[in-house]
């Protein structure tokens, strides 16, 4: 097995272009597990840990640009204010050891339907910045990034450079159901983000469909029905929950039943929206 260790982003892109079958490795918390379990035997590993650029967190034209290699622990510590939904999701990933190593870039690279960063990225309108040596940068909206179970829009010669997301202009919440109180893969998860300037509610569903996805009908319903100047109408809240649940296409598996997942999504959608709405009203009143 070749072990490639580029030290700059350019070298990394060149290595990937020259050897598209090389498997990038950042925190290694997915890659090493797969190798250990013999799920795959890559001919080459492309170690991105020396590439400084991937650790950058910057504000570019009012948009947060977060390097693919930034570990969850930094998302929690540095981005809790700007990207609260993602920070909450990061807080639920694995254990402290995992959060020290693992990255949002790796979560995107793995593109598991159960990845915890995906719902807040979807709800917050994140854009994934990918690049190849020969074709340059592509900006892929999160909603277009996930193509199937563990399949993404990333091309074999491309690497993920960063994700971009506007700092939250309204409350955001993330919620994840698991059958123990820590270190658990989501049975299902949900993220909500209020975008008051657009009078829009963003959503993201995890672990309840072949890919992470938005609850588009629920979002459209809220765009039409939500009265941004009033208390939350219980009927609207209920309908929101139902539509979020309907947006999922869950399966029965060893972690939970499809029925339970739908039920839990409705509950989480109602609860997170209520929290967000209360925060929003409180902030406006202040």
């Amino acid at each position, binding site marked *: 097995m070749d072990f490639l260790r580029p030290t700059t982003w350019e070298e990394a892109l060149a290595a990937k272009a020259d050897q598209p079958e090389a498997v990038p490795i950042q925190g290694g918390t997915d890659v090493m597990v797969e190798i*250990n379990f013999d799920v795959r035997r890559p001919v080459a590993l492309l170690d991105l840990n020396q590439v400084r650029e991937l650790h950058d967190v910057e504000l570019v034209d009012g948009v947060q640009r977060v390097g693919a290699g930034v570990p969850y622990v930094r998302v929690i510590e540095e981005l809790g204010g700007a990207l609260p939904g993602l920070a909450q999701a990061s807080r639920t990933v694995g254990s402290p050891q995992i959060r020290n190593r693992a990255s949002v870039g790796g979560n995107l690279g793995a593109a598991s339907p159960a990845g915890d960063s995906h719902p807040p990225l979807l709800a917050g309108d994140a854009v994934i910045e990918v690049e190849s040596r020969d074709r340059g940068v592509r900006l892929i909206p999160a909603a277009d990034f996930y193509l199937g179970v563990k399949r993404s829009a990333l091309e074999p010669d491309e690497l993920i450079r960063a994700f971009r997301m506007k700092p939250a202009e309204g409350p955001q919440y993330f919620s*994840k159901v698991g059958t123990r109180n*820590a270190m658990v893969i989501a049975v299902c998860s949900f993220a909500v983000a209020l975008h008051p300037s657009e009078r829009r509610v963003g959503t993201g569903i995890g672990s309840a469909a072949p890919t992470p996805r938005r609850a588009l009908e629920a979002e459209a319903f809220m765009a039409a029905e939500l009265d941004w100047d009033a208390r939350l109408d219980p009927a609207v809240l209920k309908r929101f929950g139902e539509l979020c649940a309907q947006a999922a296409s869950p399966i029965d598996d*060893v972690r939970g039943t499809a029925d339970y997942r739908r039920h839990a999504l409705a*509950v989480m959608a109602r609860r997170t929206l209520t929290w967000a709405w209360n925060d929003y009203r409180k902030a406006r009143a202040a």
Partner: protein
Amino acid sequence: MRGTPEVITAPGVGGVGDSPPRPDGTLKVTGEFAYASDLWIDGMLWGATLRSPHPRARIVSIDTTEALAQPGVHAVLTHEDVPGRRHYGLDHTWDQPVLAIGEVRHQGEPIALVAADHPETARRALARIAIEWEVLEPLTDARRAAFDPSYPQVQERPNPARHQPVRVGDVEAARRLAEVVVSGTFEVGIQDQAFLGPESGLAVPAEDGGVDLYVATQWMHNDLKQIGPCLGLTEEKIRMTLSGVGGAFGGREDLSMQIHAAMLAMRTGRPVKMVYDRRESFFGHVHRHPAEMRYEYGALSTGEILYADVEILLDGGAYTSATLNVVGNAASLGVGPYEIPNVSIDAYGVYTNNPPCGAMRGFGAVQACFAYESMMDKLAAACGIDPVEIRQINAASQGTRLATGQVLWAPLPMAEMLEQARTLPLPAPLDATDIRNLPGGASQTTHGEGVRRGVGYGVGLKNICFSEGYDDYSTARVSLEVIGGEATALVHTAAAEVGQGLVTVEAQIARTELGIERVVIHPADNQVGDAGSSSASRQTYMTGGAVKAACEAVRERLFERLDHDDLALAGGKIVSASAGVIASIEEVLGDDVIEETREYHHEPTTGMDKESGQGDSHTQLALCVHRAVVDVDVELGLVKVVELAAVQDVGRIINRLSLEGQIHGGSAQGLGLAVMEEIVVRDGVVRNPSFTDYLIPTIQDMPPMRLEILENADPRAPYGLRGAGEPPTLSSTPAIVAAIRDATGLALTRVPVRPEHITGR
């Protein structure tokens, strides 16, 4: 050679009743402890095991030629290469093939072995073994296996593996007198020991044609009784040394890689190491028997129970393993620590093609305890009596006759213990401002919405040591000599330190009995007599008893050298009651070595009558009471156990630190069974053989515990002690489920309780 155990030169300090820290503690925390998986010898080969993907299939043919032709592969073995007896098994059942012979009876059954230069080469070679299968429909219906004579047989031994009835009084007559009748069917899923150190060991071929085995196991001498005949070797030709054990909980009572590694070593003439990975470990050991239990109790409206009518069905999987004893425990303890005048219990253990089940902490008694404690709560509700009170009304106590007719000779203050559990201060009300306090924790599923608190109680009675007439004993060799000017005792036993802290206790006992400071512990091996298993909560009792007896014998020999009859040892001195300090031990001992070996046998037990189950089948019984407080998110079905309080009678505290560790650990394992731990099986196939999906409690799931430890001595036991490792595993599960019921109002008849059981979908 690396990773082999060494003499433990500093096994803590202090005597019986002290709490010295453990010699392995720091090493384990810093990652330096040598587990069996760390064993290494230059020139060794790596063994690997080919296992069946099918729960039931005929092997039409096996072709190993391609595997054997791989570079780096030194041997590929099948059942034809087993040098001796081709079956092994616990309790003289000899029903489990060393390697599958013509058919497989459970998923993961070993079929062939490979030895190669590198573990990866060995694994790849496994993939080149060609097997032609005739896949058969697995026999997975435990009920049919027990009761339907037309159900096909799983193996040569017929179903059921054991049926043990217990009959007391006249249930039919009592039924007519009952004013309140409650019934229920309860289920327990398959729990796994989930020890962290996977099965591993090293076999080194010896010049005498024998083999040196270094393995992580629970009971070396019982291993040997099976390994010897299968390898065609007499026991002297097998030198066995216990290597670092990373937890056991019953899962190492059956053999795993022992015979396999030895076969490969004997064939290749090279040392062979085998280490299972986590997935293989899930197939490499037996699990806790799943159970289906039908209970009916009749009582007076005052809460006094008149009769119990019980059927317990335990699925043992394809081979016998510990099933016979598991059935015995379930039958004899089927109604727990309650006085019930009329009892009918039928416990069955059956063979199926489901995963093989055997020993796990509290076996047989754990399953029954969930059912009988659930029944006590049901009865309390039906009578309108408080759950603690209904238990007190029917509580056993010293002098009570159990369902088997056995009289509880030792103190058993159950009603008082329940009172103590009830009156302990309750934890503070929920503080919902920190989401980590809530069900779901940092996953933020609630800010307090839907959360309800519940309180529940559980009581469990566990037999300590081996039962049903087994001649249970342990052996210890203790020598005393002057080393570097200081009297030093060397304690040598075959008892397995599996993480419970036994070596510390052995040293404490030697210090107390010999009045010295310096004690060293010899590695456990088979160069000393049998110590029995590190199971049934028995080692402090049995090996502790043997060490005590050997020390007493050494002491006697020392005293024989002096002309006094009122001697004692204290502070390194020989002290006469009449004449004061006589001499130091060093002075009296000089250059001599005093060595004594003693066997310790507990009070004998009897079998259970085949028809009535009557008999004094247990030598000691120990009780634990739990109170559980839970917060349940009733809308999402998520549970946070807020507090577990335990009241346990241990007879005598030998080492408080280790004891508390046992109660914490046992309670945590019971918590796991209550709310998350299950090997999920469909059509005989395990669906979650990994720690990704077989969940065990984390520190966020296991709450702080309040412990009340009582010391009502058992006059028959060394120091009056009671075995302590298992009782808390029994009672914490039903206490937690009772608390969830209290919070939700649901019936909850199955463990583990899953979120969808609470939400109803």
